[in-house]
């Protein structure tokens, strides 16, 4: 009798404990001022980066960044600007991955978040854009 009561209490405890993480996991927190600021800076920059993706001058790397893929696809006069765009974009992307991890109180997730983004950037890239496959080779989508 006593054990039966104890067992029921235990079952309830387990039920409670297992219900909590489910709620915590449903969504990642991405609605913070920091994330919004990075996002809008990236949205603005995309207008300048899009033609470079299209020409193949810039490609999506397998680690969630962008890189100068083919310098010859960028006219010499614009190459310096392209390099600045790439550097700024990668800085924002690094900050974005770090901020999402921090907003969820899990700084150790930063690399997992980066890999998730790396895959999704490539999945959502337009046909004709270049990306790096798992072994680092450039592939035209």
């Amino acid at each position, binding site marked *: 009798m006593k054990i039966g009561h104890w067992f029921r209490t235990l079952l309830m405890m387990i039920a409670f404990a297992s219900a909590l993480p489910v709620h915590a996991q449903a969504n990642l927190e991405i609605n913070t001022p920091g994330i919004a600021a990075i996002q809008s800076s990236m949205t603005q920059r995309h207008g300048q980066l899009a033609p470079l993706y299209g020409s193949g001058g810039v490609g999506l790397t397998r680690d969630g960044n962008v890189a100068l893929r083919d310098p010859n696809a960028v006219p010499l006069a614009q190459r310096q600007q392209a390099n600045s765009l790439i550097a700024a974009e990668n800085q924002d992307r690094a900050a974005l991955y770090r901020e*999402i991890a921090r907003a969820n109180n899990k700084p150790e997730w930063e690399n997992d978040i980066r890999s998730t983004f790396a895959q999704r950037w490539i999945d959502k890239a337009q046909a004709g854009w270049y990306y790096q496959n798992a072994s680092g080779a450039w592939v035209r*989508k």
Partner: protein
Amino acid sequence: MNRRLFGFTMAAGAVLALAGCVTINIYFPAAAAEKAADRIIDEVWQIKKGEEAAKPPATTK
């Protein structure tokens, strides 16, 4: 004696079960992260809902 053993087994089980729950929470929530990534990428790349549905969603890398 037997009851004691039973109680001990139960207590050990409870510790293991709770530890299991804690472990689950440490795992990276891949599906939630993918959803978050999609929302941000759609925003940055200005992808509209219908546009995405018209295209095959994934590549094999």
